[in-house]
Protein backbone atom coordinates (compact mmCIF):
# COMPACT_ATOMS: atom_id res chain seq x y z
CA UNK A 1 0.00 0.00 0.00
CA UNK A 2 2.73 2.36 0.98
CA UNK A 3 4.61 1.58 -2.18
CA UNK A 4 1.57 2.23 -4.35
CA UNK A 5 0.92 5.49 -2.56
CA UNK A 6 4.50 6.64 -3.01
CA UNK A 7 4.36 5.62 -6.67
CA UNK A 8 1.22 7.63 -7.35
CA UNK A 9 2.60 10.61 -5.53
CA UNK A 10 5.72 10.58 -7.61
CA UNK A 11 3.80 10.22 -10.86
CA UNK A 12 1.05 12.71 -10.16
CA UNK A 13 3.27 15.16 -8.41
CA UNK A 14 6.15 15.50 -10.81
CA UNK A 15 7.10 18.82 -9.36
CA UNK A 16 8.66 17.37 -6.22
CA UNK A 17 12.14 18.76 -5.86
CA UNK A 18 14.91 16.29 -5.40
CA UNK A 19 16.77 16.86 -2.17
CA UNK A 20 20.09 15.66 -0.87
CA UNK A 21 20.66 16.06 2.86
CA UNK A 22 24.18 16.86 4.05
CA UNK A 23 25.18 16.54 7.69
CA UNK A 24 28.48 18.02 8.82
CA UNK A 25 29.83 17.38 12.28
CA UNK A 26 32.39 15.61 14.40
CA UNK A 27 30.62 12.24 14.48
CA UNK A 28 32.85 11.43 17.38
CA UNK A 29 31.47 8.78 17.35
CA UNK A 30 28.42 8.46 15.16
CA UNK A 31 25.35 7.45 17.17
CA UNK A 32 21.81 6.24 16.52
CA UNK A 33 20.66 9.80 17.24
CA UNK A 34 22.67 11.11 14.27
CA UNK A 35 21.17 8.48 12.04
CA UNK A 36 17.71 9.25 13.35
CA UNK A 37 18.10 12.86 12.22
CA UNK A 38 18.28 11.70 8.62
CA UNK A 39 15.19 9.53 8.97
CA UNK A 40 13.21 12.31 10.63
CA UNK A 41 14.29 14.87 8.05
CA UNK A 42 13.35 12.65 5.16
CA UNK A 43 9.94 11.82 6.61
CA UNK A 44 9.28 15.51 7.26
CA UNK A 45 10.30 16.79 3.84
CA UNK A 46 8.48 14.08 1.93
CA UNK A 47 5.40 14.61 4.05
CA UNK A 48 5.08 18.16 2.67
CA UNK A 49 4.55 16.63 -0.76
CA UNK A 50 7.08 19.06 -2.22
CA UNK A 51 10.26 17.09 -1.86
CA UNK A 52 11.75 13.76 -2.67
CA UNK A 53 14.82 12.97 -0.62
CA UNK A 54 17.18 10.98 -2.80
CA UNK A 55 20.34 10.84 -0.74
CA UNK A 56 21.91 11.56 2.61
CA UNK A 57 25.56 12.43 3.10
CA UNK A 58 27.52 12.25 6.34
CA UNK A 59 30.62 14.42 6.16
CA UNK A 60 32.82 14.02 9.24
CA UNK A 61 34.97 17.07 10.03
CA UNK A 62 38.74 16.96 9.51
CA UNK A 63 41.20 16.57 12.39
CA UNK A 64 42.28 20.18 11.80
CA UNK A 65 39.05 21.30 13.48
CA UNK A 66 40.95 20.76 16.75
CA UNK A 67 37.94 20.03 18.89
CA UNK A 68 38.75 18.61 22.32
CA UNK A 69 38.51 14.85 22.33
CA UNK A 70 38.34 14.54 18.55
CA UNK A 71 39.91 11.26 17.49
CA UNK A 72 41.46 10.53 14.10
CA UNK A 73 39.26 11.13 11.08
CA UNK A 74 40.07 7.71 9.66
CA UNK A 75 38.31 6.07 12.61
CA UNK A 76 35.37 8.43 12.52
CA UNK A 77 34.86 7.92 8.80
CA UNK A 78 35.11 4.15 9.13
CA UNK A 79 32.60 4.06 11.99
CA UNK A 80 30.18 6.16 9.96
CA UNK A 81 30.61 3.75 7.06
CA UNK A 82 29.87 0.76 9.27
CA UNK A 83 26.87 2.57 10.69
CA UNK A 84 25.36 3.27 7.27
CA UNK A 85 25.97 -0.12 5.73
CA UNK A 86 22.37 -1.07 6.32
CA UNK A 87 21.00 2.17 4.89
CA UNK A 88 19.79 2.37 1.32
CA UNK A 89 20.19 6.12 1.02
CA UNK A 90 22.62 7.45 3.62
CA UNK A 91 26.28 7.54 2.62
CA UNK A 92 29.56 8.79 4.04
CA UNK A 93 31.88 11.21 2.28
CA UNK A 94 35.48 11.66 3.36
CA UNK A 95 36.40 14.68 1.21
CA UNK A 96 36.10 17.16 4.07
CA UNK A 97 38.03 14.95 6.47
CA UNK A 98 40.88 14.57 4.00
CA UNK A 99 41.57 18.29 3.65
CA UNK A 100 44.68 19.40 5.51
CA UNK A 101 43.03 22.56 6.82
CA UNK A 102 39.67 22.95 8.46
CA UNK A 103 37.01 23.65 5.83
CA UNK A 104 34.14 26.05 6.46
CA UNK A 105 30.73 24.39 6.27
CA UNK A 106 29.68 26.66 3.42
CA UNK A 107 32.65 25.40 1.39
CA UNK A 108 31.71 21.79 2.11
CA UNK A 109 28.18 22.49 0.95
CA UNK A 110 29.44 24.16 -2.22
CA UNK A 111 31.70 21.21 -2.96
CA UNK A 112 28.90 18.70 -2.58
CA UNK A 113 26.44 20.83 -4.51
CA UNK A 114 28.82 21.07 -7.44
CA UNK A 115 29.28 17.30 -7.36
CA UNK A 116 25.53 16.87 -7.28
CA UNK A 117 25.05 19.11 -10.33
CA UNK A 118 27.82 17.35 -12.21
CA UNK A 119 26.19 14.00 -11.57
CA UNK A 120 22.81 15.28 -12.70
CA UNK A 121 24.43 16.70 -15.81
CA UNK A 122 26.16 13.42 -16.66
CA UNK A 123 23.08 11.40 -15.89
CA UNK A 124 20.96 13.44 -18.25
CA UNK A 125 23.60 13.18 -20.92
CA UNK A 126 22.97 9.47 -21.24
CA UNK A 127 19.24 9.71 -20.78
CA UNK A 128 18.00 10.27 -24.31
CA UNK A 129 14.35 10.38 -23.31
CA UNK A 130 14.70 13.53 -21.28
CA UNK A 131 15.99 15.57 -24.16
CA UNK A 132 14.29 18.84 -23.33
CA UNK A 133 15.19 18.59 -19.72
CA UNK A 134 18.77 17.89 -20.74
CA UNK A 135 18.88 21.14 -22.67
CA UNK A 136 17.58 23.02 -19.70
CA UNK A 137 20.02 21.36 -17.35
CA UNK A 138 22.91 22.26 -19.65
CA UNK A 139 21.90 25.89 -19.73
CA UNK A 140 21.48 25.89 -16.02
CA UNK A 141 24.78 24.15 -15.49
CA UNK A 142 26.66 26.68 -17.56
CA UNK A 143 25.09 29.43 -15.54
CA UNK A 144 25.77 27.63 -12.31
CA UNK A 145 29.26 28.95 -11.78
CA UNK A 146 27.73 31.30 -9.28
CA UNK A 147 25.81 28.31 -7.77
CA UNK A 148 22.23 29.35 -8.07
CA UNK A 149 19.51 27.07 -6.95
CA UNK A 150 17.58 25.85 -9.96
CA UNK A 151 13.85 25.63 -9.66
CA UNK A 152 13.56 22.05 -10.78
CA UNK A 153 17.13 21.08 -10.17
CA UNK A 154 18.22 19.06 -7.19
CA UNK A 155 18.65 20.83 -3.89
CA UNK A 156 21.26 20.33 -1.24
CA UNK A 157 20.21 21.12 2.28
CA UNK A 158 22.25 21.20 5.44
CA UNK A 159 20.89 18.82 8.06
CA UNK A 160 21.59 19.74 11.66
CA UNK A 161 20.36 19.87 15.22
CA UNK A 162 18.97 22.97 16.83
CA UNK A 163 22.28 23.47 18.61
CA UNK A 164 23.98 24.13 15.28
CA UNK A 165 21.34 26.68 14.30
CA UNK A 166 21.85 28.46 17.58
CA UNK A 167 25.60 28.31 17.17
CA UNK A 168 25.17 30.83 14.37
CA UNK A 169 25.03 33.34 17.20
CA UNK A 170 28.41 32.44 18.70
CA UNK A 171 30.93 35.15 17.84
CA UNK A 172 33.73 34.13 15.50
CA UNK A 173 32.38 30.67 14.89
CA UNK A 174 30.68 31.46 11.59
CA UNK A 175 31.24 34.09 8.94
CA UNK A 176 28.11 36.14 8.40
CA UNK A 177 28.26 35.72 4.64
CA UNK A 178 28.50 31.95 5.04
CA UNK A 179 25.33 31.87 7.10
CA UNK A 180 23.57 33.96 4.48
CA UNK A 181 24.76 31.66 1.74
CA UNK A 182 23.73 28.50 3.57
CA UNK A 183 20.19 29.62 4.37
CA UNK A 184 19.74 31.80 1.29
CA UNK A 185 20.98 29.55 -1.46
CA UNK A 186 20.78 26.07 -0.05
CA UNK A 187 18.51 25.53 2.92
CA UNK A 188 18.56 24.10 6.39
CA UNK A 189 16.74 21.16 7.92
CA UNK A 190 16.88 21.59 11.65
CA UNK A 191 15.90 18.80 14.04
CA UNK A 192 14.66 20.11 17.30
CA UNK A 193 13.44 18.65 20.55
CA UNK A 194 10.94 19.72 23.15
CA UNK A 195 12.37 22.56 25.13
CA UNK A 196 14.20 24.06 22.20
CA UNK A 197 12.78 27.05 20.40
CA UNK A 198 14.37 27.46 17.00
CA UNK A 199 11.57 29.75 15.85
CA UNK A 200 12.49 32.27 18.50
CA UNK A 201 16.10 32.16 17.39
CA UNK A 202 15.12 32.54 13.74
CA UNK A 203 12.89 35.43 14.64
CA UNK A 204 15.68 37.23 16.44
CA UNK A 205 18.01 37.17 13.45
CA UNK A 206 17.18 39.34 10.48
CA UNK A 207 19.20 37.13 8.19
CA UNK A 208 17.50 33.94 9.26
CA UNK A 209 14.11 35.60 9.25
CA UNK A 210 14.57 36.72 5.66
CA UNK A 211 15.20 33.15 4.57
CA UNK A 212 12.85 31.45 6.99
CA UNK A 213 11.15 29.63 4.11
CA UNK A 214 14.39 27.77 3.55
CA UNK A 215 14.66 26.67 7.15
CA UNK A 216 12.71 23.49 7.78
CA UNK A 217 12.17 22.84 11.46
CA UNK A 218 11.47 19.22 12.32
CA UNK A 219 10.11 18.41 15.74
CA UNK A 220 11.38 15.24 17.33
CA UNK A 221 8.50 14.59 19.68
CA UNK A 222 10.37 12.03 21.66
CA UNK A 223 13.25 13.49 23.62
CA UNK A 224 16.50 11.73 23.12
CA UNK A 225 19.43 13.63 24.50
CA UNK A 226 21.94 10.85 24.08
CA UNK A 227 24.91 12.57 22.53
CA UNK A 228 28.33 11.50 21.34
CA UNK A 229 29.69 13.25 24.46
CA UNK A 230 27.57 10.99 26.64
CA UNK A 231 28.71 7.95 24.69
CA UNK A 232 32.40 8.88 25.09
CA UNK A 233 31.88 9.39 28.80
CA UNK A 234 30.29 5.97 29.17
CA UNK A 235 33.14 4.36 27.25
CA UNK A 236 35.76 6.08 29.41
CA UNK A 237 34.05 4.59 32.44
CA UNK A 238 33.92 1.12 30.97
CA UNK A 239 30.15 1.23 30.62
CA UNK A 240 28.12 -0.39 27.89
CA UNK A 241 27.03 1.68 24.89
CA UNK A 242 25.15 -1.08 23.18
CA UNK A 243 21.90 -0.02 21.53
CA UNK A 244 23.09 3.60 21.48
CA UNK A 245 25.23 3.00 18.44
CA UNK A 246 24.88 0.47 15.67
CA UNK A 247 26.24 -2.93 16.65
CA UNK A 248 29.08 -2.77 14.12
CA UNK A 249 30.27 0.55 15.55
CA UNK A 250 30.22 -0.79 19.12
CA UNK A 251 32.44 -3.67 17.96
CA UNK A 252 34.79 -1.30 16.11
CA UNK A 253 35.19 0.90 19.18
CA UNK A 254 35.98 -2.15 21.31
CA UNK A 255 38.40 -3.66 18.82
CA UNK A 256 40.36 -0.43 18.45
CA UNK A 257 40.17 0.62 22.09
CA UNK A 258 38.86 4.06 21.15
CA UNK A 259 37.73 6.75 23.58
CA UNK A 260 39.71 6.78 26.77
CA UNK A 261 40.56 9.49 29.28
CA UNK A 262 43.62 10.16 27.12
CA UNK A 263 41.76 10.56 23.87
CA UNK A 264 39.40 13.01 25.58
CA UNK A 265 42.37 15.24 26.41
CA UNK A 266 43.39 15.61 22.80
CA UNK A 267 43.38 19.29 21.74
CA UNK A 268 42.70 20.29 25.34
CA UNK A 269 44.91 23.39 25.06
CA UNK A 270 44.27 24.12 21.45
CA UNK A 271 41.94 26.75 20.05
CA UNK A 272 39.10 25.52 17.85
CA UNK A 273 39.97 26.09 14.17
CA UNK A 274 37.17 28.55 13.31
CA UNK A 275 37.99 30.72 16.32
CA UNK A 276 41.64 30.64 15.36
CA UNK A 277 40.91 31.52 11.76
CA UNK A 278 38.41 34.30 12.34
CA UNK A 279 40.18 35.93 15.24
CA UNK A 280 43.40 35.92 13.20
CA UNK A 281 41.48 37.64 10.44
CA UNK A 282 40.12 40.28 12.78
CA UNK A 283 43.47 40.99 14.40
CA UNK A 284 45.22 41.31 11.09
CA UNK A 285 42.44 43.72 10.17
Amino acid sequence: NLLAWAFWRLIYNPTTSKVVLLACGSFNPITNVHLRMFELARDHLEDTGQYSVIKGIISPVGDAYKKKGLIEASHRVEMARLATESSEWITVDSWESQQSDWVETAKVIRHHYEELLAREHNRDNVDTVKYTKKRRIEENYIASSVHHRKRDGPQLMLLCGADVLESFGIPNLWKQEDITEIVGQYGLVCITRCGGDPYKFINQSDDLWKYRKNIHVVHEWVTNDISATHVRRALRRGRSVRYLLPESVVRYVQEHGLYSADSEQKNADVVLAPFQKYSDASTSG
Partner: protein
Amino acid sequence: MASCRAPLVLLACGSFNPITNQHMRLFELARDHMHSTGRFEVVGGIVSPVSDGYGKQGLVPAKHRISMAKLALQSSNWVTVDEWESQQPDWTETVVTMRYHHGQILKEYEQSAGRHSDTSGNFASPSSPFPQLKLLCGADFLSSFKTPGLWLEDHVEELVQRFGLVCVSRGSLQPERAVHESDTLFRHRRNVFLVREWVRNETSATEIRRALRRHLSVKYLIPDSVIEYIRQHELYTEDSERRNEGTALRPLIKQAHQPIKSLDD
Protein backbone atom coordinates in the same frame (compact mmCIF):
# COMPACT_ATOMS: atom_id res chain seq x y z
CA MET B 1 37.33 -12.75 53.68
CA ALA B 2 37.36 -12.26 49.96
CA SER B 3 34.42 -10.33 48.59
CA CYS B 4 31.88 -12.66 47.16
CA ARG B 5 29.84 -11.45 44.26
CA ALA B 6 26.34 -12.87 44.26
CA PRO B 7 25.31 -14.19 40.86
CA LEU B 8 22.34 -12.20 39.68
CA VAL B 9 19.68 -12.75 37.07
CA LEU B 10 17.59 -9.80 35.87
CA LEU B 11 14.00 -10.39 34.82
CA ALA B 12 12.05 -7.82 32.82
CA CYS B 13 8.29 -8.22 32.53
CA GLY B 14 6.30 -6.05 30.18
CA SER B 15 4.33 -5.82 26.99
CA PHE B 16 7.34 -5.53 24.66
CA ASN B 17 4.91 -4.27 22.11
CA PRO B 18 7.30 -4.09 20.31
CA ILE B 19 10.69 -4.61 21.92
CA THR B 20 12.91 -1.54 21.37
CA ASN B 21 16.55 -0.54 21.72
CA GLN B 22 15.48 1.15 24.94
CA HIS B 23 14.33 -2.12 26.46
CA MET B 24 17.66 -3.68 25.67
CA ARG B 25 19.45 -0.64 27.06
CA LEU B 26 17.77 -1.30 30.41
CA PHE B 27 19.62 -4.58 30.68
CA GLU B 28 22.97 -3.03 29.76
CA LEU B 29 22.59 -0.17 32.21
CA ALA B 30 21.42 -2.47 35.00
CA ARG B 31 24.26 -4.89 34.49
CA ASP B 32 26.89 -2.15 34.55
CA HIS B 33 25.39 -0.68 37.69
CA MET B 34 25.04 -3.93 39.63
CA HIS B 35 28.62 -4.87 38.71
CA SER B 36 29.86 -1.53 39.92
CA THR B 37 28.38 -2.09 43.41
CA GLY B 38 30.97 -4.84 43.81
CA ARG B 39 28.36 -7.16 45.25
CA PHE B 40 26.91 -8.76 42.19
CA GLU B 41 27.84 -10.57 39.04
CA VAL B 42 25.06 -10.47 36.49
CA VAL B 43 24.92 -13.93 34.94
CA GLY B 44 21.75 -13.67 32.90
CA GLY B 45 18.87 -11.54 31.68
CA ILE B 46 15.33 -12.64 30.86
CA VAL B 47 12.74 -10.84 28.77
CA SER B 48 9.28 -12.13 29.67
CA PRO B 49 6.57 -10.69 27.42
CA VAL B 50 3.12 -10.51 29.01
CA SER B 51 0.36 -12.83 27.82
CA ASP B 52 -2.47 -11.65 25.56
CA GLY B 53 -4.77 -12.02 28.55
CA TYR B 54 -3.36 -8.78 29.93
CA GLY B 55 -5.92 -6.95 27.82
CA LYS B 56 -3.89 -3.85 27.22
CA GLN B 57 -5.00 -1.66 24.35
CA GLY B 58 -2.96 -2.16 21.19
CA LEU B 59 -1.34 -5.42 22.35
CA VAL B 60 -0.52 -7.60 19.34
CA PRO B 61 -0.52 -11.42 19.68
CA ALA B 62 2.11 -12.85 21.99
CA LYS B 63 3.60 -15.07 19.31
CA HIS B 64 4.63 -11.94 17.36
CA ARG B 65 5.98 -10.16 20.41
CA ILE B 66 8.00 -13.25 21.29
CA SER B 67 9.36 -13.58 17.73
CA MET B 68 10.36 -9.93 17.63
CA ALA B 69 12.10 -10.15 20.99
CA LYS B 70 13.99 -13.24 19.80
CA LEU B 71 15.13 -11.42 16.66
CA ALA B 72 16.22 -8.41 18.65
CA LEU B 73 18.20 -10.45 21.14
CA GLN B 74 19.91 -12.70 18.62
CA SER B 75 23.08 -10.67 18.99
CA SER B 76 23.03 -10.72 22.79
CA ASN B 77 25.08 -13.30 24.59
CA TRP B 78 23.42 -12.94 27.97
CA VAL B 79 19.79 -11.86 27.56
CA THR B 80 17.18 -14.34 26.41
CA VAL B 81 13.43 -14.43 25.82
CA ASP B 82 11.16 -16.63 27.91
CA GLU B 83 7.71 -17.70 26.75
CA TRP B 84 6.33 -19.20 29.93
CA GLU B 85 4.38 -16.12 31.04
CA SER B 86 2.96 -15.54 27.56
CA GLN B 87 1.77 -19.16 27.38
CA GLN B 88 -0.26 -19.08 30.60
CA PRO B 89 -4.02 -19.17 29.97
CA ASP B 90 -4.70 -16.09 32.05
CA TRP B 91 -2.69 -12.99 32.86
CA THR B 92 -0.06 -13.84 35.48
CA GLU B 93 0.84 -11.59 38.38
CA THR B 94 4.42 -10.38 38.18
CA VAL B 95 5.29 -11.99 41.48
CA VAL B 96 3.99 -15.35 40.23
CA THR B 97 6.24 -15.05 37.18
CA MET B 98 9.14 -14.26 39.44
CA ARG B 99 8.42 -17.26 41.63
CA TYR B 100 8.40 -19.45 38.54
CA HIS B 101 11.74 -18.17 37.28
CA HIS B 102 13.22 -18.35 40.74
CA GLY B 103 12.18 -22.01 40.80
CA GLN B 104 13.83 -22.57 37.43
CA ILE B 105 17.06 -20.98 38.60
CA LEU B 106 16.93 -23.12 41.73
CA LYS B 107 16.55 -26.27 39.65
CA GLU B 108 19.52 -25.38 37.46
CA TYR B 109 21.59 -24.50 40.48
CA GLU B 110 20.76 -27.82 42.12
CA GLN B 111 21.66 -29.73 39.00
CA SER B 112 24.98 -27.97 38.52
CA ALA B 113 25.89 -28.01 42.20
CA GLY B 114 24.98 -31.70 42.43
CA ARG B 115 23.52 -31.23 45.85
CA HIS B 116 20.15 -31.59 47.45
CA SER B 117 18.61 -28.99 49.63
CA ASP B 118 17.32 -29.69 53.08
CA THR B 119 13.59 -29.36 53.65
CA SER B 120 13.77 -25.62 54.06
CA GLY B 121 15.66 -25.20 50.80
CA ASN B 122 18.77 -23.84 52.44
CA PHE B 123 22.20 -24.26 51.05
CA ALA B 124 25.45 -23.95 52.90
CA SER B 125 27.79 -23.27 50.04
CA PRO B 126 29.95 -20.17 50.42
CA SER B 127 31.96 -21.12 47.35
CA SER B 128 28.97 -20.87 45.03
CA PRO B 129 26.36 -18.50 46.35
CA PHE B 130 22.80 -19.01 45.25
CA PRO B 131 21.88 -16.84 42.30
CA GLN B 132 19.47 -14.03 43.00
CA LEU B 133 16.62 -12.93 40.83
CA LYS B 134 15.65 -9.29 40.68
CA LEU B 135 12.98 -7.53 38.73
CA LEU B 136 14.31 -5.07 36.15
CA CYS B 137 12.07 -2.20 35.28
CA GLY B 138 11.80 1.41 34.23
CA ALA B 139 10.72 4.30 36.40
CA ASP B 140 7.16 4.18 35.06
CA PHE B 141 6.87 0.66 36.48
CA LEU B 142 7.71 1.90 39.95
CA SER B 143 5.09 4.61 39.68
CA SER B 144 2.53 2.01 38.61
CA PHE B 145 2.49 0.65 42.18
CA LYS B 146 0.36 3.71 42.91
CA THR B 147 -2.37 2.78 40.40
CA PRO B 148 -5.37 1.53 42.36
CA GLY B 149 -6.20 -2.11 41.81
CA LEU B 150 -3.13 -2.88 39.77
CA TRP B 151 -1.02 -4.41 42.53
CA LEU B 152 -1.82 -6.48 45.59
CA GLU B 153 -0.23 -5.28 48.80
CA ASP B 154 1.26 -8.68 49.58
CA HIS B 155 2.77 -8.93 46.14
CA VAL B 156 4.60 -5.62 46.33
CA GLU B 157 5.94 -6.67 49.71
CA GLU B 158 7.16 -10.01 48.36
CA LEU B 159 8.59 -8.36 45.28
CA VAL B 160 10.86 -5.98 47.15
CA GLN B 161 11.63 -8.06 50.17
CA ARG B 162 12.16 -11.52 48.76
CA PHE B 163 13.42 -10.58 45.31
CA GLY B 164 14.35 -6.93 44.85
CA LEU B 165 14.03 -4.32 42.16
CA VAL B 166 16.47 -2.78 39.74
CA CYS B 167 14.86 0.34 38.41
CA VAL B 168 16.39 2.26 35.52
CA SER B 169 15.39 5.83 34.99
CA ARG B 170 16.36 8.27 32.33
CA GLY B 171 16.80 11.84 33.33
CA SER B 172 14.21 12.48 35.98
CA LEU B 173 14.19 11.89 39.71
CA GLN B 174 10.87 10.06 39.65
CA PRO B 175 12.09 6.74 41.08
CA GLU B 176 13.70 8.34 44.13
CA ARG B 177 10.41 10.10 44.78
CA ALA B 178 8.39 6.89 44.31
CA VAL B 179 10.54 5.11 46.90
CA HIS B 180 10.24 8.05 49.24
CA GLU B 181 6.46 8.16 48.92
CA SER B 182 5.83 4.47 49.63
CA ASP B 183 6.40 3.01 53.07
CA THR B 184 6.77 -0.48 51.62
CA LEU B 185 9.40 0.55 49.14
CA PHE B 186 11.09 2.72 51.72
CA ARG B 187 11.24 -0.12 54.24
CA HIS B 188 13.03 -2.30 51.73
CA ARG B 189 14.99 0.45 50.03
CA ARG B 190 18.21 -1.50 50.34
CA ASN B 191 16.75 -4.00 47.94
CA VAL B 192 15.63 -1.33 45.49
CA PHE B 193 18.51 -0.42 43.19
CA LEU B 194 18.09 2.82 41.29
CA VAL B 195 20.07 3.21 38.11
CA ARG B 196 20.30 6.53 36.34
CA GLU B 197 21.03 7.16 32.73
CA TRP B 198 21.86 10.82 33.07
CA VAL B 199 20.40 11.92 29.78
CA ARG B 200 16.77 11.95 28.85
CA ASN B 201 15.64 9.25 26.49
CA GLU B 202 11.93 9.01 26.15
CA THR B 203 11.72 6.71 23.15
CA SER B 204 8.97 4.27 24.00
CA ALA B 205 7.11 1.42 22.35
CA THR B 206 4.05 3.67 22.28
CA GLU B 207 5.92 6.22 20.18
CA ILE B 208 7.27 3.50 17.94
CA ARG B 209 3.76 2.17 17.30
CA ARG B 210 2.56 5.68 16.59
CA ALA B 211 5.34 6.24 14.06
CA LEU B 212 4.62 2.89 12.41
CA ARG B 213 0.91 3.71 12.05
CA ARG B 214 1.87 6.91 10.29
CA HIS B 215 4.38 5.18 8.04
CA LEU B 216 7.23 7.10 9.58
CA SER B 217 10.68 5.65 9.99
CA VAL B 218 11.67 3.83 13.17
CA LYS B 219 15.08 2.82 11.94
CA TYR B 220 17.79 3.09 14.62
CA LEU B 221 15.13 2.91 17.36
CA ILE B 222 14.50 -0.79 17.02
CA PRO B 223 16.69 -3.43 15.36
CA ASP B 224 16.46 -3.79 11.57
CA SER B 225 15.38 -7.42 11.95
CA VAL B 226 12.38 -6.33 14.00
CA ILE B 227 11.45 -3.63 11.49
CA GLU B 228 11.53 -6.25 8.76
CA TYR B 229 9.38 -8.62 10.80
CA ILE B 230 6.82 -5.89 11.44
CA ARG B 231 6.70 -5.08 7.74
CA GLN B 232 6.28 -8.72 6.71
CA HIS B 233 3.46 -9.36 9.17
CA GLU B 234 1.86 -5.92 8.79
CA LEU B 235 1.71 -5.39 12.53
CA TYR B 236 0.91 -2.06 14.18
CA THR B 237 -1.80 -0.36 12.24
CA GLU B 238 -4.70 1.81 13.35
CA ASP B 239 -6.69 -1.40 13.72
CA SER B 240 -4.13 -3.11 15.88
CA GLU B 241 -4.00 -0.09 18.16
CA ARG B 242 -7.75 -0.37 18.74
CA ARG B 243 -7.52 -3.94 20.03
CA ASN B 244 -8.86 -4.24 23.57
CA GLU B 245 -10.29 -0.74 23.29
CA GLY B 246 -12.69 -0.21 26.14
CA THR B 247 -11.59 -3.36 27.94
CA ALA B 248 -10.29 -3.07 31.46
CA LEU B 249 -6.81 -4.37 32.16
CA ARG B 250 -7.01 -7.95 33.39
CA PRO B 251 -5.25 -7.26 36.72
CA LEU B 252 -7.92 -4.74 37.66
CA ILE B 253 -10.64 -7.34 37.10
CA LYS B 254 -8.83 -10.30 38.60
CA GLN B 255 -7.83 -8.45 41.73
CA ALA B 256 -11.04 -6.48 42.13
CA HIS B 257 -12.36 -8.43 45.10
CA GLN B 258 -9.05 -8.75 46.88
CA PRO B 259 -7.45 -6.32 49.35
CA ILE B 260 -6.08 -3.58 47.20
CA LYS B 261 -2.68 -2.07 47.69
CA SER B 262 -2.91 1.45 48.91
CA LEU B 263 0.38 3.13 48.62
CA ASP B 264 -0.44 5.73 51.25
CA ASP B 265 0.33 3.19 53.99
